């Protein structure tokens, strides 16, 4: 059961499970601390991915793009 549950985590989070499937999965999670931990780990992984900060635009890159813009406006 655990082995199947771990493969259904994304479907679960995406709301892609049927009502019955979701109920069975949640019942398992309530009874299984390992799968609950697995779900928590997936959730924190997703949250960390969401916190990835893009590198700041370098001044050189900004200059290049402004140049591109001015060329386009002129041309």
């Amino acid at each position, binding site marked *: *059961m*655990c*082995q*199947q549950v*771990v*493969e259904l*985590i*994304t*479907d679960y989070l*995406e709301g*892609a499970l049927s009502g019955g499937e979701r109920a069975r999965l949640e019942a398992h999670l309530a009874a*299984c601390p*390992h*799968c609950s*931990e*697995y779900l*928590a*780990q*997936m*959730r*924190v*992984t*997703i*949250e*960390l*991915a*969401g*916190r*990835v*900060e*893009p*590198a*700041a*635009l370098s001044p050189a*890159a*900004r200059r*290049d*793009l*402004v140049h*591109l*813009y*001015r060329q*386009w*406006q002129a041309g």
Partner: protein
Amino acid sequence: MVEDAELVERLRAGDEGAFVTLVDRYHESLVRLATTFVPSPAVAEEVVQETWLGVVRGIERFEGRSSLKTWLYRILVNRARTAGVRERRTVPTDVVEGPTVDPARFDGTGAWSDPPEAWAERAEERLDAEDLAARVRDLIDGLPENQRQVVVLRDVEGASARDACALLDLSEANQRVLLHRGRARLRRMLELEMGKG
């Protein structure tokens, strides 16, 4: 913070400042997405430059039916796909069904025999820690291309499932499979990291 909609209007009016603000806002996200399609950072930068050119040329035609961000991504993906093909980069569609957790970690009944050590709470407490976020950024770079594309769009950029499917030309089911495999791989890599204490 100036709304995208206002920037679009100002850009249509030829306001260079609006262009610079847009670039500051989106350039690095576009580069990150481009690198999931093309082999080198240099090519990715070229693709994004072409994208910006496409943006200024096409801004008159942008009707605002999608968000500006989605529209930017669409232009980028089109350019990146062309460049990817040009650079002979093949994008295998990894929808092979296979376990995302090592089967050796389960017993004959399918229950955990080698369960995950608890670190989710520790990681939650460290969410603001720059090092952890930077680490995850590196780990994402190590994902297989097609998983990375979905994870970057969905989890990093916050695009909807529908937008991700449209941009990457994937069915909802395929997109979910790639998302699942990418996330599971990241979790596993984090597990190894967190295990180092």
